[in-house]
């Protein structure tokens, strides 16, 4: 089924709705199947980028398939967001336990939500620079009214770039597991494993998982 067919089916469905008829079931199922295939393709592409994001050279910005992404650089002071908001400050910006931002002159306080490694945030990358000036580059995105920055490289002003991959060593230190396991830490994290074991992969309990994955 082509995109044109999908559009045709959607239009047909909308027309049927406007007329008060029931929807065309064949079209509905075809469109759903096609959308599921698109979703699967997007997932595979996204996952490939997640796995290969680190392949870029130090200092360069990798092009992840992020909606509205713009390659960008920021410079400013590393701040603890909670501290900025209500004066509730922690030593060394919480040492990786609090969400951190970069306070810039032009854009205000920009939350740094992502680093360069799989499924991980930026607190471990930023807290060593707590209260200091830094430069970061990466991807800026604004979608659904939310402004996000993925920092891929970080440096002191004018210094050497370093990729934002501190998380892997930090995870290894926290969990006592090897650095090599940290490359796909999400499969080995004890807390994650415990939650999945208890609630299942759908979050609906182990019985629901057994029914769905059989």
């Amino acid at each position, binding site marked *: 089924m082509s995109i044109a067919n999908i559009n045709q089916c959607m239009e047909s469905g909308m027309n049927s709705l406007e007329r008060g008829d029931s929807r065309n079931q064949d079209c509905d199922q075809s469109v759903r199947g096609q959308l599921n295939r698109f*979703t699967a393709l997007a997932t595979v592409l996204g996952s490939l980028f997640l796995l290969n994001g680190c392949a870029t050279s130090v200092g360069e910005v990798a092009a992840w398939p992020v909606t509205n992404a713009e390659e960008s650089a920021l410079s400013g002071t590393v701040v603890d967001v909670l501290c900025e908001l209500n004066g509730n400050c922690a030593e060394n910006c919480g040492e990786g336990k609090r969400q951190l931002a970069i306070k810039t002159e032009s854009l205000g306080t920009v939350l740094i939500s992502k680093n360069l490694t799989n499924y991980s*945030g930026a607190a471990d990358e930023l807290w060593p620079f707590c209260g200091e000036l830094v430069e970061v580059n990466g991807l800026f995105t604004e979608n659904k009214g939310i402004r996000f920055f993925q920092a891929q490289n970080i440096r002191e002003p004018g210094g050497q770039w370093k990729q934002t991959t501190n998380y892997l060593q930090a995870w290894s230190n926290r969990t006592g597991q090897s650095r090599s396991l940290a490359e796909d830490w999400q499969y080995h994290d004890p807390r994650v494993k415990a939650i999945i074991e208890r609630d299942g992969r759908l979050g609906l309990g182990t019985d629901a998982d057994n029914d769905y994955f059989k």
Partner: protein
Amino acid sequence: MILSINSIHSAEAMGTLARMKIYLIKICSDFFINPFRRTLLKAMFLSTFFATQSIAAEASEITVTGEMIDTWCYVSQIMGSSEVVTGSAHHVCAVWCAAGGIPVGLLDKEDGKVYMILSFEGDDTSVANEKLLALQSRELTVKGTAFELDGLTYLNIDEVVSDQGIINLTHEKYGIVPGQARP
């Protein structure tokens, strides 16, 4: 201030006001005469200014109902549309991202607004907070304090009023996203 000064009528209060005027004149004259006091006054002014700046965000007490989400996948749409990366289809990935320290959000059921969670029931650990991991994909009604800062809305959750569990059964339509989250 003007209103409060105008409302002063008693002689005692007028006396206090006169003393305040004299003190202010003394401070101002010192500012121009005494270099040490000038520096001190500048430092006091600047520290007061920056202290005010650092807690400039406006806070509001709210009660909100919504799904606990993985904000990175929701905003970036790196794994598909926002509908695909919420609910049961994306539960494992949401737990991974929360464990990895990506900000956990609360997606308001009413207006689609996303609140970035900074503290949970008095615990200021918002990165990989174990309680937040366990609540991913669930629909909660919470009470807390919301702050607006430079285009984002942050939320300190004070209390979970109710937990409806995972009711957004997206796996029925989209399967498991991403595929690596399958057994």
